C-alpha cells in the first residue's frame, strides 16, 4: 500500500497494478460512495411523491420525476427573501471582519504605543469565547434594547473576529516597515496606508478570511435560531430546519427538496472556489 506522498514515478504506476493497490482503490471508491451517496439520495427523494415514500419501494430512483416538493417549498416559504437575508448577513459579517481587522492588525503589528501588549492579549483571550458561551447573556443584553430579531443582532456580534485580527496581524508582520515609512514620506495618511497600500498586500489573507466567514455564517443555524423569531430576519437554515417540524408526519420529499435548495448553492460555490476554500481552511489550521 502506498501510504505516503511521492511523486508518481514509473515504479508507482507499476505498483498500481498490484493487488493491495487495487484494494485501496476499491476502498476509496467506497469512501466516495459513502460521501456522495447521501447527496444522491437526498436529490432522489426530493423528486418523489408522498405516496411513493409511504410505500417505500425497494428501488431508490423515483418512478416519476415530480417537482411537486419544490413547488411546495417555494409556495410555503419565501425562499428568496430568506436567501437574501442569509446572503446579506453573511456578506456583511465577512466584509466588516476584513474591514475592521486591517486597522487593528496594523496597530498591533506595526505601531508602538502604550497598552499594545494588553490589547493583543485581549484579542487572543477572546479566541476562547465562542458564541456558545455568549448567546445566553447576549440575548439578555440585546432583548431589552429591542435588538433581538434584527439584522443588527445577527451581524454586529460577529463584526470582529479575534482570529481574523490575529491572522491579519501575522500577515502584516511580514511587511517591511520601509514601505510604510516611504508612504508616509509621500504624504499618505494612515487610512490610505491601511486600506490602499496594506490591504492589497495582504489580500489573500483577507480573501481567505472573508470566504471562510461567509461560508460559515451562510450555513449558521445556532445564532439566528437564538436571536430571531421573526420572518423578516429569518435565515435559510432556520427556515429549512422548520420544514421538518410539522407535527403530523414528516413529509420527507418536501424536507429534502428544501435541503437541496439549502445545499446546492454551497456545493456549487465549493466546486467553483474549491482551491480558495481549501486555502482558507488550511490557513486557519496552520498559521
Amino acid at each position, binding site marked *: 500500500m502506498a501510504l505516503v506522498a511521492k511523486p508518481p514515478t514509473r515504479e508507482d504506476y507499476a505498483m498500481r497494478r498490484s493487488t493491495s493497490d487495487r484494494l485501496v482503490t476499491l476502498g476509496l471508491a467506497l469512501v466516495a460512495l459513502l460521501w456522495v451517496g447521501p447527496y444522491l439520495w437526498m436529490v432522489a427523494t426530493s423528486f418523489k411523491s408522498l405516496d411513493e415514500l409511504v410505500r417505500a419501494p425497494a428501488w431508490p430512483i423515483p418512478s416519476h420525476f415530480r417537482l411537486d416538493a419544490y413547488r411546495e417549498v417555494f409556495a410555503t416559504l419565501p425562499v428568496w427573501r430568506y436567501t437574501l437575508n442569509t446572503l446579506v448577513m453573511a456578506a456583511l459579517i465577512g466584509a466588516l471582519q476584513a474591514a475592521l481587522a486591517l486597522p487593528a492588525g496594523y496597530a498591533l503589528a506595526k505601531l508602538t504605543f502604550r497598552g499594545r501588549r494588553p490589547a493583543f492579549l485581549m484579542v487572543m483571550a477572546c479566541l476562547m469565547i465562542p458564541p*456558545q458561551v455568549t448567546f445566553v447573556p447576549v440575548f439578555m443584553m440585546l432583548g431589552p434594547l429591542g435588538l433581538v430579531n434584527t439584522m443588527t443582532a445577527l451581524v454586529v456580534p460577529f463584526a470582529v473576529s479575534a482570529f481574523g485580527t490575529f491572522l491579519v496581524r501575522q500577515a502584516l508582520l511580514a511587511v517591511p516597515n520601509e514601505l510604510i515609512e516611504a508612504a508616509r514620506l509621500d504624504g499618505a495618511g494612515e487610512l490610505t496606508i491601511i486600506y490602499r497600500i496594506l490591504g492589497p498586500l495582504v489580500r489573500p489573507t483577507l480573501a481567505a478570511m472573508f470566504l471562510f466567514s461567509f461560508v460559515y455564517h451562510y450555513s449558521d443555524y*445556532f445564532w439566528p435560531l437564538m436571536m430571531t423569531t421573526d420572518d423578516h430576519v429569518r435565515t435559510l437554515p432556520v427556515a429549512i430546519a422548520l420544514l421538518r417540524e410539522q407535527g403530523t408526519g414528516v413529509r*420527507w420529499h418536501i424536507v429534502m427538496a428544501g435541503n437541496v435548495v439549502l445545499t446546492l448553492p454551497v456545493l456549487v460555490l465549493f466546486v467553483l472556489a474549491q482551491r480558495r476554500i481549501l486555502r482558507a481552511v488550511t490557513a486557519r489550521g496552520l498559521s
Partner: protein
Amino acid sequence: MSLRPTKAFHPYAMLAPTLVLLGLFSIVPLGVAFHRSFFAWDLLTPAEPVGFDNYRFLWSSGELLEVGWRTLAYSVVVVSASLTLGLALALALNREGRFYAFVRSAVFSAYVVSWVAVGLLWLWLLDPQAGLVARVTRGLGWTPVDWLGNPKVVLFTLAGVTVWKITGYAMVIFLAGLKDVPRSVLEAAALDGAGPWQRFHRIVWPLLRPTAAFVGTTSLILSFQAFDIVRVMTQGGPVRSSTIFVYAIYEQVFVNLRIGRASALTVVFFLLLVGLTGLQWRWWRNRPRAKTTL
C-alpha cells in the same frame, strides 16, 4: 522594529472598534452570565437572588456530571474517529490524479455544507422504516439498528454523523502537513528497503505528530460546542441520552425558561473550554511552522 504612530491617538482609534466589539460581545457577556447565575429568573417575571442554588442544583441533581460525561464521550468518539479516518484518507489520497481529487472533494464537501442540511439528510437516511440505511440492512437480512431511537446508541449515531461531516477537515489539514514530509527522505528510505508501514512509522508520523495534535485539540474544542446536530436530529432525546452541553444550556433558557441555571451552566462550560484551550496551547507550542503563508 516598530513604527511610531504619526499621532498618538491613532493606534487607539484603529483598535477601538475591534476592542469595543470584542468587549461587548465576548467579555461583558461573561460577566453578565456570571452575575445572572446567582438569580432565579424566567425572563417574564422579576428575578430573585438565590445565591449558589443554581450551581448546587446542577451538582446535586446530577445534571452537570451527566451532561459533562455525555459531552466527553461524544467528543472522544468524534475526535478519535475523525482523526484516524482523516489521516488514513490523507495518506491514501495524497497523489495526483482525477480519481483521487474527486474522492478528496467528495469527503471535504461535507465540511462545507451546513449542519442543518447534514442533520436533516441523515435523519432521513437513518429513518427506521423508510430510510436507506434500514432498507439496506433489511435487504442484507439483518435487523436494523434503531439508530436514533435507542438511548444507548443515539449518542454514537450523532458522533458518527459528526465524523462524516468533519473528517474532510482533518484530511485536508493532514494533506497540508504531508507537504512538509521531504520526498527525498522517503525515496531514500524506500530504496533502503523500508516497507510502507516502516516509512509511515519512522518518518511520516513523527513529522505529522504536531499536525495531529493540532487537529485533535481543535476538533475536541469544536465538538464540545456541538449543538446544531442535536437540535435538528434528536432534541436531546430519547431520554436525554443525547443532551450534550450546549443543548442543555439551550434547553434551560428556551424550553425551561431558567435563565439562572442556564447561566450557571454557561459559566461551567466556559471554564471547561478554558481548560481545553490550555491543553491546546500546550500542544500548539510545537506546532508545525506554516508553509502556506497567506
